[in-house]
């Protein structure tokens, strides 16, 4: 039964994601996670500021339940289905990250340099995480979707806009890692 504690290979993970999209379609919903961020804005009263957030958020309650499930799933996956959380990335990638100062590369699930609870006391870490989140939230809504909405749902539906968005995701990601990372870290 040890296999259950191992990370899932891509050929299990990818089909699972497609299966999740299929399940959502079969209950009459569309797979798209960043929509929840807009719903949360509306719940917080953003509709009073601008019309973009004026909609009946209760119609999106189902998606908030999915997100709640995703939290529980993270708990189950890490506490009951995993023995060693280390992610075995490419040794060359590890060397690279070590040079940037990420000594936890290859030993943990997330870099302790950014995601250890103590890092909440480090101003630079807070700024890095906050800017990352700001860009994700702003960009996802500007593009009208994120990885689930465009790269999975949109491309599965052969939508050209989704292809443009996914190309954008990769341009942004590569600029960040190849050009900006050496300046930030």
């Amino acid at each position, binding site marked *: 039964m040890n296999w259950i504690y191992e990370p899932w290979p891509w050929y299990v993970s990818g089909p699972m994601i497609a299966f999740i999209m299929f*399940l959502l379609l079969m209950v009459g919903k569309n797979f798209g996670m960043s929509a929840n*961020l807009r719903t949360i804005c509306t719940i917080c009263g953003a509709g009073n500021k601008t019309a973009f957030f004026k909609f009946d958020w209760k119609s999106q309650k189902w998606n908030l339940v999915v997100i709640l499930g995703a939290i529980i*799933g993270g708990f189950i*996956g890490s506490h009951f289905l995993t023995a060693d959380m280390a992610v075995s990335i490419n040794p060359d990638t590890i060397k690279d990250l070590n040079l940037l100062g990420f000594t936890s590369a290859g030993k943990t699930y997330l870099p302790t340099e950014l995601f250890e609870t103590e890092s909440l006391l480090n101003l630079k870490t*807070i700024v890095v995480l906050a800017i990352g989140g700001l860009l*994700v939230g702003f960009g*996802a809504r500007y593009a009208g979707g994120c990885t689930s909405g465009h790269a999975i749902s949109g491309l599965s539906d052969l939508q050209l806009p989704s292809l443009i968005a996914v190309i954008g995701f990769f*341009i942004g990601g590569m600029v960040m890692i190849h050009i900006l990372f050496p300046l930030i870290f």
Partner: protein
Amino acid sequence: MRTLIYLFIGILFGITMFKSEAASWFRIYEMFKFESFHMYGIIGSALVIGIIVVQFIKKFKIKSFYGETIRFNPKAKSFSRYMFGGIIFGLGWALAGACPGPMFTLIGVGFTPILIVIIASILGTFLYGLFKAKLPH
């Protein structure tokens, strides 16, 4: 009952995001470095099956479990919003190492600092709403 189904789908999604390591900052970095097939295999295989599923549903007009017509929402035609929005999203995805699904999964794993990413992404969404009219779409 329907709420329980959504919860179940969410749990399945969360476990998948964690166990596939798609929720790992390291995997995202490695993907943008093109140093592993892992993430491309995940997205690629999800996509191949996804395309077959969607085309099948459309061709045979499959109804949902509740007998309703399955609707796909075609995205509005444009270039700039998808390209600019996509680039901004990509910059953040690589920096925070998490997209809007996995960031919630990581709360369940117990990484407290991810809350900063989540709160900031809600704020980012709010800022988009404020400046929407001034941006090229």
